[in-house]
């Protein structure tokens, strides 16, 4: 049985007929009425930009806020048709006429007002007002822009904002329009969906083709914008400022983590840049200056640079040997004479006169290279790389910042690839055991590992932001926590050794010692082909019940114990002492 298709075809023809009749009535019968309406259709919807959410530190200081500014906007479609007006406007704004055209390029067919310059000064605004008769397509719009009231010390963590690109408009899931701002890096980028508010809508009176000036319509209801959520950081403004002033814009980074939660207390990278350059849309020349700058200021060295970790890595080598049961805390090898013969090569110790006979704990305290060469021979490459991987080294930490890169733990296969199969000697392993050679780690990876030791094996995913809040709604951002597969006795031995590095009589990190607190740490000085050693120092404190873990790295600055450790000491002194913001301001 097949149903008749006659009835549905009649219904279909009937329904389409209704539409055709309605279409005919609108377009043919009532055409002149609607054409008139279209010509006088002078109410245009325009958006009101929502202010971005504030970013505050753990104590409530506003790190990133927003302030009102005035933008000089134009109606692209009609301005582009008026060369004389573009010439006058270019004169007032002191910009090229081509610059104005390029600003309107992507919205050339639109009547929606588009910003030509942002954050105009008072003199420019006055000129625009005076010459308004000659500028029928130009209007001044008040818009919120990002501001960083506490200065540049939060740069790399916070990142910056900028105008959306055409690519972002298409690929981002939110509805973005040309001229909208979007987080481009750092926390601004990662938490874009929280920080970005919802734009409002207002009405602008505009008559296409009649050359009268667009004005705001006040008698129609405007849709108020909803500001973005307020983001609360784990960071401490004072500690961050101190780290910034200690780094003095040198190449390197200073990192501090809350051992118990993985919260990022401070993160600075040098050299730095001025985030306010970005807040109103960066100019091409400023952008090229930053990109071309030798120190690569846009790179966040804490998460986007990989370094050979140097002697800091002895903690990992020692941990691996302990876990594999190859040594105890007292195991001694051949005495250190300052040099070690392996095959037909001599491997030196950093202390040319030698350390004599030392046990494992003491070898870490004095950072004896010869001890670790001998340990490496017993441990072997496979053990070292397998355990490093198990402890999440050479892997992204999963911090809430975009662009984090992973370190590199060389395995036998990797070395085969570099040198050719079996073309590398076991001598390579000697270098790796003291953190030199092909080994590359990001500062954050290393600090998360040490923070895990300080926390008796619990490894937290680091988090810059603690939560986002708005009108009583809150989102908490907690990183996940995992257990390092390391026995408690191994952790205990490493902690004891790290304590001796700072508190012991012969410790290489004595210069980090502070009267207020006992700290535990490890120094590193990494040879590199670009000049002096990279100086690094990693530590946590207090020894018994750790709260904070720190990492200081200065490129080409010399010995870790001499250069990096004192900076860590200052950070500890501030964190545990009576340090106030005013004091920090003085240091700065």
């Amino acid at each position, binding site marked *: 049985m097949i149903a008749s298709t006659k009835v549905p075809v009649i219904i279909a023809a009937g329904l389409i007929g209704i539409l055709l009749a*309605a279409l005919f009535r609108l377009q043919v019968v009532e055409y002149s009425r609607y054409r008139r309406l279209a010509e006088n259709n002078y109410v245009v919807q325009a958006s009101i930009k929502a202010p971005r959410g504030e970013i505050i530190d753990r104590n409530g200081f506003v790190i990133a806020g927003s302030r009102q500014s005035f933008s000089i906007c134009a109606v692209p479609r009609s301005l582009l048709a008026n060369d004389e007006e573009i010439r006058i406007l270019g004169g007032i704004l002191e910009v090229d006429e081509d610059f104005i055209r390029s600003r309107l390029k992507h919205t050339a*067919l639109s009547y929606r007002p588009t910003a030509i310059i942002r954050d105009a000064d008072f003199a420019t605004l006055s000129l625009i007002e005076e010459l308004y008769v000659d500028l029928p397509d130009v209007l001044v719009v008040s818009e919120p822009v990002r501001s960083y009231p506490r200065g540049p010390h939060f740069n790399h963590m916070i990142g910056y904002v900028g105008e959306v690109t055409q690519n972002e408009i298409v690929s981002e899931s939110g509805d973005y329009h040309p001229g909208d701002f979007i987080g481009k890096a750092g926390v601004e980028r990662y938490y874009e969906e929280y920080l970005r508010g919802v734009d409002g809508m207002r009405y602008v009176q505009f008559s296409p083709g009649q050359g009268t000036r667009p004005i705001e319509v006040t008698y129609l209801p405007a849709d108020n914008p909803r500001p973005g959520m307020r983001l609360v950081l784990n960071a401490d403004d004072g500690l961050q400022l101190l780290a910034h002033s200690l780094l003095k814009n040198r190449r390197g980074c200073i990192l501090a983590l809350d051992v118990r939660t993985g919260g990022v207390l401070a993160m600075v990278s040098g050299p730095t840049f001025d985030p306010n350059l970005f807040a109103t849309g960066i100019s091409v020349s400023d952008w090229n200056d930053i990109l071309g700058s030798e120190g690569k200021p846009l790179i966040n060295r804490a998460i986007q640079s990989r370094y050979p970790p140097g002697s800091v890595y002895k903690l990992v080598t020692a941990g691996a040997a302990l876990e594999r049961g190859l040594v105890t805390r007292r195991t001694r090898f051949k005495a250190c004479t300052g040099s070690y013969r392996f095959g037909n090569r001599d491997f030196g110790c950093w202390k040319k006169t030698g350390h004599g006979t030392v046990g494992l704990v003491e070898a870490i305290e004095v950072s004896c290279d010869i001890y670790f060469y001998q340990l490496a021979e017993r441990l072997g490459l496979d053990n070292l790389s397998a355990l490093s991987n198990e402890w999440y080294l050479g892997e992204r930490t999963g911090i809430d910042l975009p662009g984090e890169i992973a370190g590199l733990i060389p395995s036998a296969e990797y070395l085969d690839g570099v040198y050719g199969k079996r073309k590398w000697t076991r001598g390579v392993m000697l270098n790796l055991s003291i953190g030199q050679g092909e080994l590359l780690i990001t500062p954050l990876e290393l600090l998360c590992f040490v923070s895990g030791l300080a926390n008796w094996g619990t490894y937290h995913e680091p988090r810059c932001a603690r939560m986002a809040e708005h009108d009583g709604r809150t989102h908490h951002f907690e990183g996940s926590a995992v257990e390092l597969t390391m026995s408690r006795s191994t952790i205990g031995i490493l902690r004891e050794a790290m304590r001796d590095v700072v508190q012991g009589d012969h410790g290489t990190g004595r210069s980090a010692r502070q009267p207020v607190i006992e700290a535990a740490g490890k120094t590193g000085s990494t040879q590199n082909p670009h000049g002096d050693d990279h100086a690094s120092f990693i530590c946590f404190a207090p020894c018994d019940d750790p709260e904070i873990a720190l990492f200081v790295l200065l490129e080409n600055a010399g010995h870790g114990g001499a250069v990096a450790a004192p900076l860590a000491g200052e950070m500890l002194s501030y964190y545990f002492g009576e340090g106030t913001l005013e004091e920090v301001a003085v240091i700065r």
Partner: protein
Amino acid sequence: MMQQKWLLAALLALAGLGIFAIYSSSSADFGWSLALRQVIWCVLGIAVASVMMRVRIKTLSAFAPLLYAAAILMLIVVLAAGRGPQGTRRWFDLGLFRFQPSEVAKIAVILMLSRYLSDRGAIGDSLKSVLGVFAIAAIPAALILNEPDLGTAVVVGFLAFPLLYAAGLDSLLMLLLLSPLIALICAWEVVAWVVFVALLVTIVVFGRFKTSLIALVFGVNFLVYSLAPRLWNGLAPYQQARVLAFLNPDNYKFTAGFQIIQSKIAIGSGGFSGKGPLEGTQKALGLVPAQHTDFIFSLMGEELGFVGGAGVLLLLLFIVYRIYRIAGTVRSRFAMYFCFGFASLILIQTFINVGMTLGITPVTGLPLPFVSYGGSQMIVFWGGMGIVLGSSASRKEY
């Protein structure tokens, strides 16, 4: 296949017009990117269609319950994890595109209904089968209603009627079944309500129905009448505003009626021959919202005039007509039901969508089939077309 070349030509013409309209409405803000994406969706849709064409009807029938269950599952998940404007939960954000399960549900419901009805003989007056048909359509419709997406929910629920008709349900009985929907409209005016009840009584007198059915129909209708205010209050404020604005757009000129009035001005000012491709003035003002998606017909009306607008409508009517014709010639009952349902889906969606741009149906978020911007709808409608073409090609096999 070759005998359907005109059908294919109509589909391609429609898709081409859609791509042009998307470019015209979005180039100011997005350049080529949205139009290019639509081209990609169109190519993908045709690829899906050519795959669906080769799937045997028996296989489709066998997999229909599984597809239906998958669609229901996706609708449940989207309620929990989906996104959409103003806190709705309509789509999954897959980065590259937004996947809208309710589009898939449309096809899944038609397939499931086709399977259900082809498993049974003539439906006659079997109340049990009728209730089964309603249940199959109502479950996804209820889930979609919760997203909330009133328009799509109504369309999915409505699919039950053409399929019941195809199954040979008595026409008067169909009217009785449809009566609660009409009651919902008539419940607001005493005069309309009296006329409605009078008509209902007339139908009951002329048809010979079981007393129990008559009692049920009257019971449901009076329940609808008394619950109408409560149903109204159950609508979201923006839905209420849309209905009120539809009934009297001038009172809501700058709020909910804004879209309707601006769309009518855009279309009306296009006149008989239109303002010319890319020459629309109203689109550039940004006055007609969602012009590359739901309101795309208003751009076509403005730039291509009555000639273009009528052309689009006639292309759609031709497509619907051809699919109904195919439904009348296929041997497989499953394929017949499917074609019937699919043609009705295109028809109802066209009517609601174009009607909304002309101000004769309320504003809902329904795309114009084969034309509006959107990956989900393009792939689903082209996929459905593939099944139709496949069943038309295989009609001689049986």
